[in-house]
């Protein structure tokens, strides 16, 4: 089974390299199961991590915003995250116990193709840019030193 898994990852790893070339984005390969790419959007610069397992491929921006430490702000960010999840396809926002927010796309390896790869990168970059301000506003809602625009 381990040998099969290695073959799957090797093949997928090679495929991902080709997909990146086709998509036109530069990437860095940490190992056969972990890649890093990124983009500069209207709201900032983002790293996207791509990780593969036996059955899944994950595209993830983490952290999406700076860790939210204020307890009340963390609740506002959670609310923003949950409403955002209603409006987005293919991706989801999540928060860990430390208050760090992630944006991710999870797809099955079974049937994974270039169109899925391109859709995942397009979606995650679009949603990152589209939702960044709302999350930063929620995180800063109790920041008394925040400058009001």
């Amino acid at each position: 089974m381990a040998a099969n898994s290695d073959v799957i990852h090797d093949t997928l790893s090679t495929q991902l390299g080709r997909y990146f070339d086709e998509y036109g984005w530069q990437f860095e390969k940490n190992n056969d199961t972990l890649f890093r790419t990124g983009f500069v959007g209207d709201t900032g610069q983002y790293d996207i991590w791509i990780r593969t397992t036996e059955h899944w491929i994950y595209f993830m921006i983490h952290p999406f915003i700076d860790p939210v430490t204020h307890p009340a702000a963390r609740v506002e960010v959670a609310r923003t995250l949950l409403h955002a999840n209603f409006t987005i396809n293919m991706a989801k926002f999540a928060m860990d116990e430390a208050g760090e927010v992630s944006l991710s796309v999870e797809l099955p390896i079974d049937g994974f193709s270039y169109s899925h790869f391109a859709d995942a990168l397009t979606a995650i970059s679009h949603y990152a840019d589209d939702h960044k301000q709302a999350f930063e506003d929620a995180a800063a809602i109790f920041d008394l030193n925040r400058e009001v625009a």
Partner: protein
Amino acid sequence: MWSPDQEVTPTVDIPLFFERYGWKFETVGPHTYRTGFRGNHDAFPVLVRVTQHWVVFTINPLLRGDNGMGATTLLTLAQSNHVSNFVKFGLDPEGDVFLTVELPVDGFTYVQFSDALRAISHTADQFSVSLLQAQAIDRAQSN
């Protein structure tokens, strides 16, 4: 290609997959089907909808937000997204909690169909108690 706006077109034979899976279902609209299951803690209806690009499995409401969502519930839901695979928790415009699985129509197989049904039913059952507890904590704190 991915697009935020999606039109409905028939592409996947969901009734055939339901028959193979052995779950009863009913057609409730164009390319929209309803099934359900009884878990350890509750019964849940599941909607399966096919759009141009996606097959979407949804339980809504997983939890009603009649009196708004308190801090404990919001944090529990946000963190549930972090620890669960394949599924997404969120709040709809009415403030109800939904649980969903979305898979691309392109390359959609019976294996993915059965994985999605298993994931959404398992997750709903697994998290429903902790969400009800979180809601109870919020209610107690607001009184």
